[in-house]
């Protein structure tokens, strides 16, 4: 008897217990406007934009949180409802800057969209701004509190999804605003720079630091050789930024667009993802065999996750793999091996990364990331910033012919492509570890480890290799990472190897991904990466010919002295 019959705008609706009016309305195609509501987050019910009339009640109720009940009669389109919604938006606009044309979120702003939908032509109230200072302290994020509408979506993303909780509402009444504790700037609190708040924010109150100008400048400088690397997740998300459906694979068009923008070489972070597997796989085997470093081994690809463990679980840092992330391995290899090969002075080599991630902007300026003698990666752009550059020059992305990455740092395997989805690093590592231990390759139909795929918060797998069992766990989203860390702290961790990705869904759900990223688009992008993997001729990192050549010509072998010098690092506790 969970079926509940109600009427919305004269339509009979069959809903189930626990549904809200908003949920029920959507099942029959009635769209109720929302602002503070977000499909993946809780129900703050603070903006009053979704109010509806319920027969028998004097006051309007928020559809996003009001539960359906038997026989309820709801009206979503009455003069009273329209007036209240319009008033709610007008009041927000009255203390919101009116610089839409030059706002980073222009045309991607939910408040702007509502004002347009409601046909608001004038604001009856005096415009009073709070005139709060802009926080540009961090290399990753810019917070413009004047644009904050107190919807609290960033707070939920930060506290509930990521378990970091640097943001909360402070003060009261007109002065209330979302802030870090004590009004401190983001760079001096325990922010991990994951940027999930930028995806949650309906306006331009928090966004990535835009570094496109620095890249344009480098591209325009004839003295500088500018190369670019693209993270695994970009190939299934850039399309969405440019208007294609979620999960469209655009690898070839991405390469073509980057060439059109003027990059001298277009390379792939997938190359160093394969390299990471070689190093990290051997590190895992060495830890298991020698027992000289703690298990489980924790992955280190995700810079938001590294920031998290440095701030919240510094005692567990010895568990973290010493491998740098693929982005940083790329920078180190580019400014040494590639520079040598291409006979380019590394001082004139400018390395740009296209990443789904805001924390990568912080990672590339870390003091640990200068092993080439220079800053290994010069600028990190998010998917959104690359989209902006492509739009700025008017490239018709959809009609581009597909092109291939440049050699040698553009050669990769399917194992690297899946790095962008939660569980992908684990799966790639298992494929290679199996081959290293047994000396034989996994059969084509045994290549996929479905236990570690998908969007469950914590996944576990056990893989038999020559009579021994390798136990693995995978977590994505830092609140899930926290659960795993608590188990390790309590000595209740039966695993050898644990993959942690900071963002929900892994990098496909990163904080630098297109505005509008939700769980379903994360799933689509992840699925598309598995499709990329299936279509690749090579699917294991240790069979990447360019990686093998790199070892032969330059590094020697995995975990060699030179590998350690360029590809490994140690992280240190940060105050929390």
């Amino acid at each position, binding site marked *: 008897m969970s079926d509940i019959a109600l009427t919305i705008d004269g339509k009979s609706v069959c809903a189930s217990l626990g549904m809200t009016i908003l949920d029920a309305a959507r099942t029959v195609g009635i769209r109720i406007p929302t602002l503070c509501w977000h499909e993946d987050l809780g129900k703050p019910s603070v903006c009053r934009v979704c109010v509806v009339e319920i027969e028998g009640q004097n006051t309007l109720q928020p559809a996003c949180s009001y539960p359906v009940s038997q026989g309820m009669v709801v009206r979503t389109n009455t003069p009273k409802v329209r007036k209240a919604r319009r008033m709610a938006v007008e009041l927000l606009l009255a203390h919101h800057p009116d610089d839409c044309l030059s706002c980073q979120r222009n045309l991607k702003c939910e408040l702007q969209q509502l004002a347009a939908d409601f046909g608001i032509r004038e604001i009856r109230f005096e415009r009073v701004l709070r005139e709060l200072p802009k926080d540009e302290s961090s290399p990753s994020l810019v917070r413009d509190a004047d644009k904050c509408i107190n919807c609290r979506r960033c707070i939920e993303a930060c506290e509930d999804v990521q378990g970091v909780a*640097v943001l*909360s509402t*402070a003060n*009261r009444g007109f002065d209330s605003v979302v802030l870090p*504790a*004590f*009004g401190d700037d983001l760079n001096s*609190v325990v922010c991990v720079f994951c940027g999930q708040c930028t995806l949650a924010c309906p306006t331009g109150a928090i966004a990535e630091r835009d570094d496109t100008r620095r890249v344009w400048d480098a591209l325009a400088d004839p003295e500088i050789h500018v190369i670019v690397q693209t993270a695994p997740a970009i190939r299934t998300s850039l399309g969405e930024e440019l208007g294609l459906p979620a999960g469209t694979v655009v690898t070839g068009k991405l390469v073509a667009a980057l060439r059109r923008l003027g990059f001298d070489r277009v390379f792939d972070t997938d190359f160093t993802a394969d390299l990471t597997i070689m190093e990290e796989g051997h590190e895992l085997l060495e830890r298991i065999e020698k027992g000289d470093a703690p298990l489980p081994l924790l992955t280190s690809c995700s810079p938001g996750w590294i920031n998290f463990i440095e701030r919240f679980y510094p005692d567990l840092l010895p568990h973290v793999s010493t491998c740098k992330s693929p982005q940083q391995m790329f920078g180190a290899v580019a400014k040494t091996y590639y520079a040598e090969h291409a006979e380019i002075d590394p001082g004139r080599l400018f390395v740009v990364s296209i990443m789904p991630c805001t924390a990568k902007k912080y990672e590339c300026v870390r003091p640990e990331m200068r092993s080439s003698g220079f800053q290994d990666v010069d600028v990190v752009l998010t998917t959104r910033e690359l989209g902006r550059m492509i739009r700025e020059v008017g490239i018709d992305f959809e009609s581009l012919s597909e092109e291939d990455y440049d050699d040698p740092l553009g050669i990769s395997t399917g194992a690297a492509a899946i790095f962008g989805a939660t569980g992908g690093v684990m799966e790639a590592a298992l494929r290679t570890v199996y081959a290293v231990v047994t000396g034989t390759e996994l059969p084509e139909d045994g290549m996929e480890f479905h236990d570690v795929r998908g969007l469950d918060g914590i996944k576990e797998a056990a893989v038999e290799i020559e009579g021994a069992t390798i136990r693995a766990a995978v977590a994505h989203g830092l609140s899930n990472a926290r659960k795993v860390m608590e188990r390790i702290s309590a000595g209740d961790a039966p695993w050898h190897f644990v993959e942690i990705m900071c963002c929900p869904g892994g990098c496909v759900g990163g904080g630098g991904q297109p505005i509008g990223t939700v769980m379903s688009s994360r799933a689509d992008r992840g699925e598309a990466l598995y499709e990329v993997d299936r279509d690749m001729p090579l699917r294991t990192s240790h069979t990447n010919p360019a990686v093998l050549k790199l070892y032969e010509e330059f590094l020697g072998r995995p975990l060699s002295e030179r590998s350690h010098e360029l590809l490994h690092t140690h992280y240190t506790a940060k105050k929390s």
Partner: protein
Amino acid sequence: MSEMRGPAGPGGPSVVCKCECDDVFLSKVEKVVSSYRGRPEDLVQALHDVQSLRNYLPREALRVVARTLDVPESRVYGVATFYSMFSTSPRGRHIIRICESAPCHVAGAAEIIDSLLDELGVEMGGTTSDRMFTVETSSCLGVCGVAPAIMIDDVVYGNLLAEDLPAILRRYR
């Protein structure tokens, strides 16, 4: 009702400056909040207890509260800045709250406010130079029957006339 007192420093009224988060003070804070360890639901009470030490909530004290109760610092700061009874900046030994809601206003609160600020030589929200009094406005004190009213620490003074103020203030000096 009891009167809250800040600790008196040597040679004068309680020292309320920004640099007083010394170890002695912080160990007092730790002692005060220890009974709320791991109890986020007791945040408001813990803040009251901490504030009673120095009449305001210094930053380092809020960090102790956050750690002890296991509440994010951002939330502790949010709660401390939401309620008008809490202050995150230093205040005088006694807090004078003037009701600014309609019934007191109608009964002549404006005149009381002017006289009080004049008598103390401060602006609204300010602290006297001897660090004795901080004057704040307050929403309804719930004593409309005796409007206009002020509250000094925990004591309510109602049916006020401007000429009553000097005598009342003398009791605290």
